[in-house]
């Protein structure tokens, strides 16, 4: 199945069933941090969906924006209602490929993942340095990337601008198991 079709099915159909040879993560973790001199904002999402196909090195990720947890409820409200507009854009997605991934290697491989990240209907190419750990019949993939607020049409009111970093640090931690019906 080509990457584009896999992404379309995964992202837009909640009836999509992974195929043989695909590994699934239903409870991946994505965290983000915004550091400024005024305020540090941190959020985590522990219910991130991802599929990984070792044979083709393809990886797709779907993040429900409302499932991010914040320490303060006002931050949660601003994030969903003003910045992300979660009613209009409920998910962020990533579709890409691990470059030079070798499925025959057990243990750790540090590789570059290249792909497209979509947030608020804006898609940008991204490169992510990631660690892939093959253990028994599972794969762990961990990595980090930076997201520029201005790239994704995130409108921060001038009054709150000093509180929100221009560059948001995102990290992720996924553990995949073979898909079983």
């Amino acid at each position: 199945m080509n990457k584009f079709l896999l992404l379309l099915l995964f992202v837009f159909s909640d009836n999509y069933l992974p195929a043989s040879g695909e590994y699934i993560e239903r409870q991946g973790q994505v965290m983000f941090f915004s550091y400024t001199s005024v305020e540090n904002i941190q959020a985590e999402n522990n219910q991130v969906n991802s599929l990984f196909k070792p044979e083709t090195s393809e990886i797709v990720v779907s993040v429900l924006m409302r499932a991010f947890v914040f320490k303060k409820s006002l931050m949660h409200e601003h994030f969903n209602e003003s910045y992300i507009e979660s009613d209009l854009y409920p998910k962020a997605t990533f579709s890409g490929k691990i470059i030079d991934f070798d499925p025959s290697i057990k243990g750790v491989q540090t590789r570059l993942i290249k792909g497209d990240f979509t947030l608020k209907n804006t898609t940008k190419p991204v490169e992510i340095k990631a660690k892939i750990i093959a253990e028994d019949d599972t794969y762990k993939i961990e990595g980090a990337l930076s997201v520029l607020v201005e790239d994704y049409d995130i409108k921060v009111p001038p009054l709150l601008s000093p509180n929100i970093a221009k560059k948001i640090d995102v990290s992720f931690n996924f553990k995949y198991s073979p898909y079983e019906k």
Partner: protein
Amino acid sequence: MQSAIDTNKIETEKRFTINELILEHKTETFKQFVEKAIEVEGVIKEITFRNDKYTIILSEKNHNTLVLCEMQIDQNQKMTKLNVDEKIKIKGVLKGVLMDVIVLNCIILEK
């Protein structure tokens, strides 16, 4: 990270069986329950503990879609008393759907 929300203090918007919730998510009216407290009754398929949080996964025989209920930290002590295949009623804040229905800040109502 502990959320600022406490589901104990929120009024239930709607009660579902797991079958009703899974069918509801395909309808237009589902959106009106997002960010609201719902109750769902179903059978425990699996209990996970990851990143310092418990999640109870509910399943229904006729559906591939699961319901993922991420538990509030104050429920941790109750978690050790639960078993797979047990029937349970959970209250939490509905967040939406990916492959599965996602409910956060969940508390156990009765075993």
